[in-house]
């Protein structure tokens, strides 16, 4: 554990929030995509909204090893990492549009289950978290620089 431990923790959070941003961008970009994947019947399915799940960065081999060697008390602070990106299983939006190439026999089109409002909220949340982590990082830097001023 070095003086830069807090930097590394914040860096992991910044990376995670950037990935959240990427996922939100992907959701918004694909909000009209009707041909994302082909299902077992050979028919196209619309894009499914993606969501990011986060977990503490401690769930890795190194931390389990140090826990087994009973050194865990010394270092309880960890970063964050993305555990996986999951699909939103809510039903697709259905719209009556017989002219659409992907409309079914009744004239209905299945559209992605992407809600622009939710995406905007996620976008703001990711941006604010990113900013918060940058602020925390700068505060840490400020502390270190102040410490270097001791006895000046």
């Amino acid at each position: 554990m070095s003086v830069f431990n807090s930097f590394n923790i914040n860096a992991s959070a910044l990376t995670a929030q950037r990935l959240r941003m990427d996922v939100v961008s992907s959701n918004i970009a694909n909000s009209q995509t009707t041909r994302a994947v082909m299902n077992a019947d050979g028919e196209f399915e619309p894009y499914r909204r993606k969501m990011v799940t986060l977990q503490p960065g401690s769930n890795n081999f190194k931390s389990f090893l140090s826990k087994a060697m009973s050194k865990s008390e010394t270092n309880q602070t960890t970063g964050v990492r993305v555990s996986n990106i999951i699909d939103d299983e809510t039903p697709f939006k259905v719209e009556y549009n017989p002219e659409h190439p992907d409309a079914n026999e009744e004239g209905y089109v299945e559209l992605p289950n992407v809600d622009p409002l939710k995406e905007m909220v996620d976008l703001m949340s990711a941006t604010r978290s990113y900013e918060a982590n940058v602020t925390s990082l700068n505060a840490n830097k400020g502390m270190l620089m102040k410490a270097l001023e001791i006895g000046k």
Partner: protein
Amino acid sequence: MNVQGLSNVNLQPLNKELNKVNDVNNKQSFAKVLQQSLEHINKVEKEADMKTEMLAAGKIDDLHDVMISAQKASITVEAATQIQRKVLDAYEEVSRMQV
């Protein structure tokens, strides 16, 4: 008036202390410590330089990684200069000492 020589002063403890100081010097000399820390600073600086180069070449995804590496390097160098300043201060203090 009868002035006597300092014949019975026991220098044994002083010599012992001197030996101890010499032992410490042999184990980890100041020059060695200085060199080690300078090597560390060099490593951190090189890492920051490498990341900046990779960013310019478009080989890096995370801008914040580059910035954080640069900040780490800057703090390390700042700490080194502070320590260098303190060492020089101490040297000057000793050199000004009245004998």
